[in-house]
């Protein structure tokens, strides 16, 4: 039973690691220049604080996942790992929500505030952002699943961890 539990946990963490790495790399390398009416218009993730926050948080989450994978054997740290998992899950949900809020304005604009959508001018930048945001969403979901899985032993006696 302990082996299956460890295998599932390691698989979930590897999936989260892959998702965070994809999110960081694709957003960091997304850059596009557009020419509109003799003006050059560059789109980079550093122009928006929400995307900067997103990249930083995903990087922190990826780094923590690597740490958790390496230190998985020590059972003394299991409670600390659980609490840190909770903190990282909260950080991931916050970063994806912030990035999605700004990306929604970039895609559809906000007519009430007079903000025009920018995806018409920089379509490839927008496509790369979509991929990165999907990866970030998967990372947040996987971390929440990991937390529920860690606590599932208390949900029902059937899942009780046998010594």
């Amino acid at each position, binding site marked *: 039973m302990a082996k299956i539990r460890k295998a599932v946990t390691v698989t979930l963490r590897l999936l989260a690691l892959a998702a965070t790495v994809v999110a960081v790399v694709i957003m960091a390398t997304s850059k596009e220049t557009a020419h509109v009416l003799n003006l050059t*218009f*560059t*789109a980079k993730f550093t*122009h*928006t*604080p*929400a995307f900067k*926050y997103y990249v930083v948080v995903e990087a922190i989450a990826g780094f923590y996942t690597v740490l958790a994978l390496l230190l998985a054997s020590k059972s003394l740290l299991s*409670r600390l790992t*659980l*609490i840190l998992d*909770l*903190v990282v*899950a*909260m950080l991931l*949900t*916050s*970063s*994806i*929500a*912030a990035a*999605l*809020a*700004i990306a*929604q*304005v*970039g895609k559809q604009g*906000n007519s*009430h*505030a*007079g*903000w*025009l959508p*920018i995806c018409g001018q920089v379509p490839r930048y927008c496509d790369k952002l979509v991929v990165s945001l999907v990866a970030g969403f998967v990372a*947040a979901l996987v971390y*929440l699943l990991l*937390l*529920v899985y860690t*606590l599932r032993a*208390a*949900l029902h006696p059937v899942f009780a961890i046998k010594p």
Partner: protein
Amino acid sequence: MGEEEVGQKRQKAVVLVLRAAAFLATAAATIVMALNKETRTFVVATVGTTPVTASITAKFQQTPANVFFVIANAMASNHNLMMIGSDLLGLDYRGFKLPLVAILDMLNAALLSAGVHGAAFMAQLAKNGNSHARWNEICDKFQGYCNRGGIAILASYVGLLVTLGITVVSIVKLLKPKPQPQPLASEIEVP
């Protein structure tokens, strides 16, 4: 009353107070953001000597992130209210209660975190604009709307921190080893 019982009662009281604080904070955030509306009239042109005015309204429904903020805070305050009610009424679902409460608290914290951060970054965009995307700031014209939105976001942050504390307490309670029932001396079979 043994010492352990006194400790448990104290812990229950602490959790109840934390839940009440979280409920008040998220309910305040919901109400302040839901009633956030400001109308301003601007002079857009002058025809002869009479100015032509147009009135523009800033409402929270115009920004999807703020709509999500209101919904998330409403659900969070509802959750806390239900938990306070079930604690006071002493409901117990055949031992399911503690794990159910821990997982629901965790999901509540995730929802609240997403809601508050989406609204906070939209507020930052409204306050500073984004020169690269040619998005103008709107807070210089609608100061009351922005101030009230800021207060709602601050209240929700306080609620988020308290909810995180409650979640940690619930998880720690869940992981505590339950005392195993000892067999009576008369039941032990001597082989």
